[in-house]
């Protein structure tokens, strides 16, 4: 997979805060920082993987890119345009460039529409084709994702999870997007189906020259599909590197723990590294730790700065391997 150096999308200091509680006068008293000051770039035609456990904000980033949520602060720069500064109406014009494949195929399709209508709708709304050509395109897309033309008039409840996810992918493809945000597209599927859908995504990427932001909570799925991988923890990006670099030389203690938690399939193969078990739970994003987000669970000896100051994410090796850890800076 050739990665060129043209930036397609850049996010700068992106944050999304949700108000959990308000006082009598409507002032927020409890704020959940789902995404807190995250920056990265996605290059044209690459697959950028974003991993982290549940609630770390990776889905929120995906949904901000796809116009489901508006960012609290920060910039989303797509092809040189800051999408956050546009009005809803202007913003909609970019919908056809950035599409989203949802996590749960059982919830993401309107139960009252036939799958053909679901796929035709985005073409129709964005006025991409004259009315008489839409039908042809719908059947073509159905074939692209491995569904048969005669299934066009069926309703979502008549399909299995894997088939529904294919409909979701076809809907995303319908507008010929440049970037597809895949929000854990296989986590709701059976393992046997997961591989099929992943391979479909890889094939489609090559066929249509797509760029992916691939969100997952398991490193193994991301390893299969991504070129570069970012690791998130509690609303912040902790480590970002090229795939092999990250998997072979993880620098952040959290990444190391994540990698060691991936099961080894062959029992004869010994783990090359010790299994790292993290203690305790993820702190609440409403009240995150003062300094480094990972400081409460970090198993490497603490520095004074760890509890006080949030580490910046910087390129420590000079090899575009970014990490946010005080110990790595030293």
């Amino acid at each position, binding site marked *: 997979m050739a990665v060129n150096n043209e930036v397609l999308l850049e996010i700068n200091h992106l944050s999304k805060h949700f108000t959990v509680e308000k006082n009598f006068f409507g002032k927020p008293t409890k704020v959940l920082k789902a995404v807190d000051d995250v920056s990265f770039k996605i290059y044209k035609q690459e697959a950028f993987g974003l991993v982290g456990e549940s609630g770390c904000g990776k889905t929120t980033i995906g*949904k901000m890119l*796809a*116009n*489901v949520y508006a960012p609290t602060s920060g910039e989303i720069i797509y092809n040189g345009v800051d999408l956050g500064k546009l009005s809803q109406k202007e913003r*909609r*014009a970019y*919908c*056809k460039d950035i*599409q*989203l494949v*949802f*996590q*749960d195929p059982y*919830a*993401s*399709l*309107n*139960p*009252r529409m036939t799958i053909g209508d679901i796929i035709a*709708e*985005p073409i129709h*709304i*964005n006025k991409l084709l004259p009315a*008489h050509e839409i*039908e*042809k395109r719908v*059947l073509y897309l159905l074939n692209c994702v491995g569904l048969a*033309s*005669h299934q*066009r*008039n069926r*309703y979502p*409840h*008549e399909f299995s999870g894997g088939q529904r996810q294919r409909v*979701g992918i076809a*809907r995303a493809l*319908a*507008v010929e997007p440049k970037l597809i945000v895949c929000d854990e597209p296989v986590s709701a599927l059976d393992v046997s189906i997961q591989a099929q859908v992943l391979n479909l995504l890889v094939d489609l990427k090559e066929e249509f020259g797509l760029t992916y932001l691939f969100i997952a909570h398991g490193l193994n799925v991301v390893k299969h599909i991504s070129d570069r991988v970012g690791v998130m923890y509690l609303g912040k990006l902790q480590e970002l590197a090229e795939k092999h670099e990250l998997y072979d030389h993880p620098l952040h203690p959290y990444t190391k723990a994540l990698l060691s938690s991936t099961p080894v399939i062959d029992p004869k193969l010994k783990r090359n590294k010790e299994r790292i078990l993290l203690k305790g739970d993820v702190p609440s994003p409403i009240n995150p730790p003062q300094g480094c987000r990972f400081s409460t669970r970090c198993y490497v000896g603490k520095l004074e700065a760890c509890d006080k100051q949030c580490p910046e994410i910087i390129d420590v090796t000079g090899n575009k391997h970014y990490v946010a850890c005080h110990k790595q800076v030293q």
Partner: protein
Amino acid sequence: MSEAQMNENKQGKLEKPESEIKQMWSALIQNKAAVVGMVIIGFLIFIALFGKWLMPYDPNYADLSVNKQPPSVAHWFGTDEQGRDIFSRVIDGTRVSLVVGLTAVSFALCIGTVLGAIAGYKGGKIDTFIMRLMDIMMSIPNILLAITFMAALGRGIDKAVIAIGLVTTPEYARIVRGSIMAIKDSEYVQAAKVIGNSDTKIIFKHILPNVLSPIIVRATLGISTAVLETAALGFLGLGVQPPYAEWGDMLGRARVFIFEAPYMLIFPGIAITLTVMAFNLLGDGLRDAFDPKARS
């Protein structure tokens, strides 16, 4: 369009077996209860349209010499306290009651759905404003509020319909708002936003069709409430003006004679029950026909 394209188009259409409306219709006529409901409603509409020629007597002609007579060959449903033929009056009242029930409910349904949809989807201050307004309306007894509206609008059956429509609006607004809030964060609504739908389109195309069931059920029940509330207004001299016949009004007047002449109450009562039942049956059928899952 070239001929080749047209052919392809035709083929594309051929693969579409039945249109959405056709599918709904075939599901509806397979539902026996719904068919019974439709037959009764058809019958009522027929009576409303052609009742004039079916009435044995002038419904408004009072003959005190034959007042409060039990059902007989001459007077099938008996006569009322003024000696008017109840059978003729029930037939004559069909038109008014049907129109009142349907119009008041449609009125409330349209306004209530729009208000509830805006409140539920937008949330925040708009939601608070609309729903507190609805709360204020709901906190005042229906009939009292209707009288207030009538005081502003004036007398007459048309105004009574508007008043009742306005008074029942909050119920629909509440149901619609609640249902919308339950599904507005669902992924398919988010998906609708991702592909570039405007808010109006999201509400009308993606949200409302999925919350139809409780709305339909409430609306069919609402028809009976509307008929009875019109009767209450008529009883207070604000609805149908005497001597014109209306079921609720007949029921209200007959109440005094419930032990003496129960038939005065029974026949308009049966007419109302039949109407309500017919709309409920049709409503249930419609609810299932609209739902692709229940259809298959």
